[in-house]
């Protein structure tokens, strides 16, 4: 009984981890050039609305 329970719990944890990583990989690999550009435009728009500096203004090396 104890062995079966351990197996079930471990299997469940492994399945969750596996699902997370596979889902993450799948999500990551679907990123396209258009999506990257759209994301950049979205960030620029958000920055404008929040009255923050444009994150893509060239002279900015990065922000914290």
């Amino acid at each position, binding site marked *: 009984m104890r*062995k079966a329970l351990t*197996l079930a719990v*471990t299997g469940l944890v492994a399945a969750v981890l*596996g699902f997370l990583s596979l889902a993450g990989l799948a999500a990551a690999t679907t990123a396209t050039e258009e999506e990257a550009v759209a994301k950049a435009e979205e960030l620029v728009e958000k920055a404008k609305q929040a009255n923050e500096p444009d994150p*893509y203004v*060239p002279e900015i090396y990065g922000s914290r």
Partner: protein
Amino acid sequence: MVRDRLLLYAVAAVVTAIVLAPLAAPGYVLRYDMVFVPRQPLTWDLVAPAQGLPRAVPMDAVVSVLTQLVPGWVVQRIALGGAVLLAAVGAGRLVPTERTGVRLLAAVGYAWTPYLAERLLIGQWGLLVCYAALPWLVRAVLELRAGRADAVARVLLAAAPAAITPTGGLIAFGVVSLLAPQRRRWRGSTVAVAGVALLNAPWVAAALVTDAGGTSDPAGVAVFAARGENWAGPLAALAGTGGIWSAQATPASRALPLVPLVTLVLLALAAAGFGLLRRRMSSDALTRLLVLAGAGFLLAALGVVPGSADVLRWAVAQLPGAGLLRDGQKFLAPYALLLVVCVALGAERLVTRMERTNREVAGVMLGGVLLLPVAAMPDLAFGGAGRLWPVSYPADWQVVAGRLAADPGGEVLALPLSGYRAYSWNAGRTVLDPAPRYLPATVLIDDTLRVGDVAVTGENARLREIRQLLGAGRPVAETGVRWVLVQQHRADQVDPATLTGLELVHQGAFLALYRNPAVPPSPVVVSPVRWAVVVALAAAVAVVVAAMFRRYVGGLLRGNLRSEVQTLEDWHA
């Protein structure tokens, strides 16, 4: 044995392919500090910068030489692919275990750290080369301690790629000078330490001869300090090997609230694995490894601990070379390596215990731990979820390079004044201006670093003078530069009055090149002290050649072919 080795390489290759998948497309990945060009000229400014700090010495010289032989896109793929692949294989080989699964776990874990992801996303590929060389270097030093023949050559060959950047060279020097010395075998360790010191000679010589001075703007300490990536703060981010200063170079998944718990699980596993490491490694070597990893962690944390941050600010402003410490998270690499090795051994301990009750569960558990880093940071896959994407340079660049090559002499000023650019043809990704590496001339780009609202002043005195002139509304013709390159994506920022008195030589869609008729062509005047850098480079190359000779040729010449073949097999083992 061979099967296990092949499996390790295969898994490392799969991880490399997943991380760098976009590099299968043609072109150049240009992102933050990562700039590759088709053929990088071997100019004095790349070998021994006269006005700036030698942050890319001797890396730029190495790339310049390599791109005379193969195109820059090939060099970029070899550097990035080699770094991820060899990092994984090196970590897998370093773990003192008989179990293939544990080696695979270390390989995946070391190639999937936040450290690797963040330094990749900020484009510091030279540092990644050091990160990849680190497990090989540690292994070679441990062999030196064990008295293995030709271990000194192995140490030097592993340290050489690390030393292509000042930070990497310092890390390699720290590893060897801390781990190698021992009373019984003082001769080998002394040669190894001296050899690695010589490998560092090029950037040290360049730092001594540059006019930039060795001190930096202390404002950089706060902006380049480790950054908290989620609710747990910067120290927890560092504990998980993340914490780079830049939000743009941090994978989005690092902000998830569960990340600190994953770090906690890894630290618990590492604590369990440490006991096993203590049994399998000499206590002296282990203590030194711990000191090395601890010192790396402390350097990384310097900028965020209130008292030490003040000391660091003072040091950066007063002590030449202390500026190297302001982005201290770079020094976390030895900590990352020790953490991964301990986590792998912790998993082994856990699995061994579970195997006594249920073998299947143990296998599933090992697989779970192996997938944990990937599950916790899936957005490293596919070039950081599409953030690394190759593009082609517009034809303008080749045309401008051709014009400058046909009429050499004089400085080129890149306008608008900015070190970093976000070109439309690079999908708006920020990248260090490629002009100094693409064009066969001395190119002046602004070295002020803007991080958020803070401007960190650069060290280039010539740029300071030009900035002041332009700031006072004077035309660029008065600065004494012979060429002006206007990068059109920000043309709105260049006041037409600034360009008064210049002749337009090329007008393209992305670049415009102007000539200053007031400045005649002048040959590049090389100060004799800059030859010291060439001598240092020659010394470093001599060290590498001697190590290669000792490692691969010496045995063959002695006719000891059989043992050499065995050694070669061991090297690839």
